[in-house]
């Protein structure tokens, strides 16, 4: 066992040391380093998603430093908000207080964005979110003046799913499942409206994340005699659901959004994912040379494949870096914010540009399908439905 006295002495010492260093901190900005931060869940239940994005940001920064096109050195700063609204303010303020930080990729979750954005707005530090999709975030009433959304909101994908089912598959009855997250509920809400407008019968149910047993839900899907299914959620939960659906003998079509459009979905669900349709506002992510190189570099740097939103975070970071380049050394927070708001950047996944509320511009949604254990590109949804 531990020596009692030593522990008794060591703990206050350690805590004291932490306290001293913690208070004495506060790094000033060097003339030749600029910092780009990421705010998202780096601890807690959603770390996997946060790490995907963090790695994307890190990779972009490392590559820019390696290329040496900038006359300043870029540095990465992590801002962990656990994906929770109540932890986001402290995380945001910490980033704002660091004068070296010129831009933030994030916040990753809509809830955290809601509480952190007033602080960012006040400070003028720009935030470009790769994944916060709640449509209300860009409501001008919020006065989130520093928020740019680097991802199309739920409306576009939800509507695309509805049109595809209505026009291409001529579905009669659609079973709509959301995962009770902000993302899933938003997506499902939009899809429901679209389906109802097209006169399709909708069964809307929810299956929260981490449900212990998806068998009952799968049975309910089969019993409902729906000929198509929409799952609005993330791949972690879509995978066991897909398995149980296959076991329950579900034969209809199944579609899901960019939260599931991830190689790990196939890895986790095996052949149960076969023929699943996946939408994504991103263009073909497997064919282009740039994407392939990204994938390989990512694999090399982090010993794993890029996940959901990795590429988006990478793109957004590169977009920020490009703007920093054009500013030639004199990088001010407000100036960078205004420059980014007006900029247009063609990344690996899509072209990024924003409207006056910071909303993502562009409505194209693309369709993919799992075939032979690979996510195969099908084309633009609008073109597919003709």
């Amino acid at each position, binding site marked *: 066992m531990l020596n009692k006295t030593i522990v008794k002495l060591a703990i206050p010492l350690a805590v004291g040391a932490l306290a001293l260093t913690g208070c004495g901190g506060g790094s000033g900005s060097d003339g030749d380093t600029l910092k780009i931060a990421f705010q998202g869940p780096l601890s807690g239940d959603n770390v996997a998603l946060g790490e995907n994005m963090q790695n994307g940001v890190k990779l972009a920064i490392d590559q820019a430093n390696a290329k040496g096109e900038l006359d300043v050195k870029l540095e990465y700063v992590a801002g962990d908000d656990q994906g929770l609204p109540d932890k986001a303010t402290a995380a945001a303020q910490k980033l704002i207080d660091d004068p070296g930080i010129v831009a933030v990729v994030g916040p990753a979750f809509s809830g955290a964005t809601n509480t952190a954005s007033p602080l960012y707005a006040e400070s003028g530090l720009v935030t470009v979110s790769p994944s916060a999709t709640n449509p209300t975030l860009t409501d001008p009433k919020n006065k989130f003046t520093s928020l740019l959304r680097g991802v199309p909101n739920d409306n576009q994908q939800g509507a695309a799913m509805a049109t595809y089912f209505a026009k291409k598959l001529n579905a009669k009855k659609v079973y709509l499942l959301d995962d009770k997250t902000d993302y899933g509920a938003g997506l499902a809400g939009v899809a429901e409206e679209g389906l109802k407008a097209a006169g399709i019968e909708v069964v809307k149910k929810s299956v929260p994340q981490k449900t*212990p047993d998806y068998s009952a839900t799968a049975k309910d899907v089969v019993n409902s005699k729906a000929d198509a299914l929409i799952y609005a959620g993330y791949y972690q939960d879509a995978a066991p659901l897909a398995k149980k659906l296959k076991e329950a003998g579900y034969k209809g079509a199944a579609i899901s959004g960019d939260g599931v459009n991830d190689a790990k979905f196939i890895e986790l669900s095996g052949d149960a994912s076969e023929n699943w349709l996946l939408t994504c506002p991103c263009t073909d992510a497997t064919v282009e040379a740039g994407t392939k190189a990204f994938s390989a570099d990512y694999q090399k740097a982090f010993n794993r494949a890029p996940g959901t939103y990795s590429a988006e975070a990478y793109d957004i970071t590169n977009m920020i870096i490009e703007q920093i380049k054009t500013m030639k050394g004199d990088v001010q927070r407000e100036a960078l914010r205004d420059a980014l708001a007006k900029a247009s950047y063609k990344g690996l996944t899509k072209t990024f540009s924003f409207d006056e509320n910071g909303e993502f511009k562009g409505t194209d949604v693309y369709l993919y399908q799992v075939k032979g254990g690979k996510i195969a590109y099908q084309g633009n949804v609008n073109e597919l439905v003709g």
Partner: protein
Amino acid sequence: MSLQEFWDYLVLGVMLGSLYAVIAIGYTLVYGVLQLLNFAHSEVFMLGAYGSLIVLQFVSPADNPSALASIGYVALAMAGSALFGGVTAYGLEKVAYRPLRRRGAPRLIFLITAIGASFFLYNLAGKLFGRDPMTLPEMYDNHNVLTIFGAGVNVTQLLQFATAVVMMICLDLLVNRTKLGKGIRAVAQDAEVASLMGVDIDRVISRTFVIGGVMGGVAGFLFANLNQASYTMGFIPGITAFAAAVVGGIGNIRGAMAGGILIGIVETMTVPLLGDQWRSVSAMVVLILVLMFRPMGILGERVGRAA
């Protein structure tokens, strides 16, 4: 809901419930001897799942295995999970609980220690094994093996149910027929007197933890097999199984089985009636109702006759 559908869901519920029952037994056993709400049991369960994953990583099952090979894989995975679960529970008792017991600390302190240990273990697992979920490799062809009045039961579900039944029978025999079982019952009744009568309390408690840990570990494997493994997988089934143990009558092994199956049925029935999102709510409502009208659980609390 037609009668056939009702029956289908009932069978599904029993199968899920038997999984809860195996976890609940771990809670109940520890409660029996220590009167301790072992919050860290859900982490024992989680590490059990990783135990089976690691074993299967070594064996790496072939595609389309023969029936015999399938049984071998399952047995190996189960052994791995039992080992991990048992070792974790043993370590937990030795490191976290024994020093407290020596001091006669109040149970609240145990509770906080359990919470601390739980935090530590699940974050450690996330660090060691990565934070994405993982699935077990396919060990057998998961087809329907039998039909109970029209409701199909597949291999995974049968495995769950059979394991639960076998474990409960073994445990029942162990507690009622063996010397260790006598020790467990004696400690549960009155630890002080038991120690005066020559029962080595430390050893009995330690072994009880190991037995509970083995069960928790195997349950972890079964859960990973049904769903998937991740470092946060313990929390929700842990709380549910804990509720099940209380519903059945905490400290009572048969009660844990009954409570587990009842909660499993209630949860599964909620899905077609109210929707999956109300699953836990209905389980908790059942818990509160049972406690209000039968405060000792369905089969009665039997601390001291922990069988």
